[in-house]
């Protein structure tokens, strides 16, 4: 190996330049590691399945304004129309849409009474076609039967006797064994009993930022409401074609209401995670640009130091240094600068993470990510210094004898 001590001493003679590069590397590492960590967390959230057959589902709002509107009759008419339309797999009336951000939550508890622990759960009011329409996977128990479905008036506050819950909700209520939830009674509104007659694999709540996003329940209700929603599942690939057809059919079948916000689940997912997506894209560009700037900074300073040492380098060549030795001189020098920067950067990354954890209740960072960041920055440094180092190696030994 070359004279490590010599390289180090040469480095100390240009402390400030080396320090500036080190600090840049340190800050880049700090930002990079935390930004990637934030991106990972968001990506994980975005990858969670909603439990729905998203690609083939759309929904629409049915806003009633007519005064003499027979809710029960018209709802049955609408559902019949939807379910008979060619290409529609199934359809339901529903009170809230997963990932949409707006919905209803209640607390369920395993013991009746005030002050007992209750677990928050998203409420979906649906009929017996829900599992088929949403494309849910029933893990245990059975679907609602037609006779389970009750009518719900607009400010009614009692609850039906049965419910289907998600596996995550079952696990929250019965932490030992989710399967044991089947057939059990849970209490809603502190004291009203509901029997758990089915468990579905997954169905997300409407709020993707909620810690209990996997906890949902299906309640067998048909709603008398002026602001209902229909969810429609189509045969694969026919969603876009059916959306305008169904909007038109519903609008024309009854003039006492407005059909609006005909929206696909894909759009809902996009909108729901738009902020996440945006942050990820912004962070990606920040990391890319930051790495480039640091890289160019290294190139610039290396070029400068080579220009200044032209004669010295020529003399070294004249005294017998090979091109490889000149290149490795600069690469080793860069390795030393990077090491100092990376050392600071690891501290910075952890420091920033501690601040993020305490201010924005983020999760603490993983060591693997820091190691990865360290490796990346070493590589960036080595790649950046390669061009100047090769240029240095091309300096002619003859320069040593030139005076002016």
């Amino acid at each position, binding site marked *: 190996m070359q004279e490590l001590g010599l390289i180090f001493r040469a480095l100390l003679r240009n402390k*400030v*330049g080396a320090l*500036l*590069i080190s*600090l*840049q590397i340190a*800050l*880049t590492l*700090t*930002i990079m590691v*935390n*930004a990637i960590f*934030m991106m990972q967390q968001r990506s994980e959230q975005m990858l969670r399945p909603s439990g729905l057959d998203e690609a083939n589902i759309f929904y629409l709002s049915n*806003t009633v*304004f*007519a*005064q003499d509107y027979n809710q029960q009759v018209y709802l049955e008419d609408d559902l019949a129309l939807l379910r008979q339309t060619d290409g529609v797999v199934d359809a339901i009336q529903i009170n809230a849409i997963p990932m949409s951000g707006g919905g209803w939550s209640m607390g369920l508890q395993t013991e009746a009474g*005030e*002050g007992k622990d209750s677990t928050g759960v998203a409420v979906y009011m649906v009929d017996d076609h829900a599992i088929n329409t949403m494309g849910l996977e029933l893990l245990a128990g059975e679907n609602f039967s037609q006779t389970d479905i009750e009518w719900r*008036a*607009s*400010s*009614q*506050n*009692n609850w039906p006797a049965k419910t289907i819950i998600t596996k995550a909700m079952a696990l929250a209520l019965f932490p030992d064994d989710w399967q044991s939830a089947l057939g059990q009674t849970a209490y809603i*509104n*502190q004291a009203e009993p509901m029997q758990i007659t089915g468990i579905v694999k997954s169905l997300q709540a409407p709020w993707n930022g909620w810690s209990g996003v996997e906890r949902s329940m299906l309640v067998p209700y048909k709603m008398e409401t*002026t*602001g209902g929603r229909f969810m429609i599942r189509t045969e694969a690939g026919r969603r876009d074609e059916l959306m305008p057809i169904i909007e038109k059919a519903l609008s024309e079948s009854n003039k006492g209401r*407005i059909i*609006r916000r005909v929206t696909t689940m894909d759009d809902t997912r996009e*909108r729901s995670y*738009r*902020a996440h*997506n*945006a*942050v990820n*894209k*912004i*962070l990606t560009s*920040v990391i890319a*640009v*930051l790495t480039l*700037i*640091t890289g*160019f*900074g290294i190139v*610039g*300073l290396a*070029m*400068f*130091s080579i*220009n*200044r040492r032209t004669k010295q380098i020529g003399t070294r060549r004249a005294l017998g240094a090979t091109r490889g030795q000149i290149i490795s001189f600069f690469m080793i020098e860069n390795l030393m600068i990077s090491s100092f920067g990376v050392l600071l950067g690891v501290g910075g990354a952890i420091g*920033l993470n501690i601040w*993020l954890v305490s*201010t*924005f209740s983020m999760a603490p960072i993983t060591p693997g990510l820091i190691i990865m960041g360290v490796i990346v920055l070493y590589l960036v440094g080595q790649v950046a210094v390669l061009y100047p180092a090769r240029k240095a190696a091309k300096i002619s030994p003859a320069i040593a004898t030139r*005076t*002016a």
Partner: protein
Amino acid sequence: MFTYYLRLAWISIIKHWGLSLVMITAIGLGIGASMTTVTVNYLMSANPIPHKSSQLYNVQLDSWDVNEPYNDDGSPPEQLTYGDGTYLMNAKKAFRQNIQAQANAVIEPEGDDALPFMVTARANSADFFTMFDVPFLYGSGWDASSDDNKQQVVVLNNETNQRVFGGENSVGKNIKIGGNYFKVVGVIDYWDPKPRFYDISTGAFNDSEEIFVPFSMIAEEKIGRSGNTNCWKPSGDGFQAFLNSECVWLQFWVELPNAQAKEEYMSFLGAYVEQQKALGRFERPINNRLNNVMEWLEQQQVVADDAIMMMTMSFMFLLVCLLNTVGLLLAKFIGKAPEIGLRQALGASRRTLFAQYIIESACIGIAGGLLGLVFAWLGLQGIASLYGDMLKGLTGLDSTMIVSAIGLAILTSIFAGLYPTWRACNVQPSQQLKSQ
């Protein structure tokens, strides 16, 4: 001499264009990134009603479950129950008061081919318009007697007036809303406070509503409520039971002209809660709050976490760019040591040289700042397209931001230039002149 230095800077920047380009781009990117995030933060934390924000107070009472606080930090619910709100309204103890909730409605315009459409609505009291300085194009808000007499009156925004009445003065005309006829009393000129401070329960940056009706229309069931509702105690069946419940779903604002009025109102609230405690409600400790507009926005953390995080990162980014510029300027100026030595020999004092090189740094800064503005504009366009209507109205560059961007760029580059310039001016002339 200043123009001479400018010319020298220009020659130097052009001669070393590669280095200059890297520096200008670095500063530009740093400034651009910072300005983008600062703009979003700045607009998010803007004062939507500067001249009276300190006199408008949001009212909070803690009517929540004795077993569990509403918020983990112990702060009371952001909204009030119907019972508490109407009591405060009827008491009229403040200079002005406004009870309000979000709603929506279907408007059925006259004419056979006109289609019914949905609008966002606000149910509020007469004082809403005077408290919040709502500008009117035609007519005005309704008066308190309309509230008391439950009159079916409505204030439209300009767009709704365009849509239904073709933009003419519609005051006095009737409009069918949710199947009932309402009389138009006023048309609002453009009004869109950001943040929408008076109701941030469904998002702080929503647009202001399209129509405004008296709050009593909700209890009369003439208009459908929307927005957030939170309950902790089961309520009975029916709408009346809901109104009587412990559910919180409405906002209450008061205008209190001075500290004394605020104190008096606070003690009024205290007395009310004591009285309710005697009736078995308000089992939690007294936790009444009056926050003025800016306190309220601050407390409700209207500025999104993401925005703060990104601003922090973009400032670190700027710091990297700054270090980069320091390094490159240092390289450049030290490379100019022979010229500096010569200039000293020809009569330049350190002060003169300092001025020359600081001006060169500042020129790079101005160029970087201008480029930064372009980047900031692009960044904001990017953010606007990534977020869509979620950040509507929060991605515009105003003159304040443009001036601060350039100011920041110049400051940054002068700061970056300080050390390199200092080093350059300390060149020993005699060592530079002998040979090259």
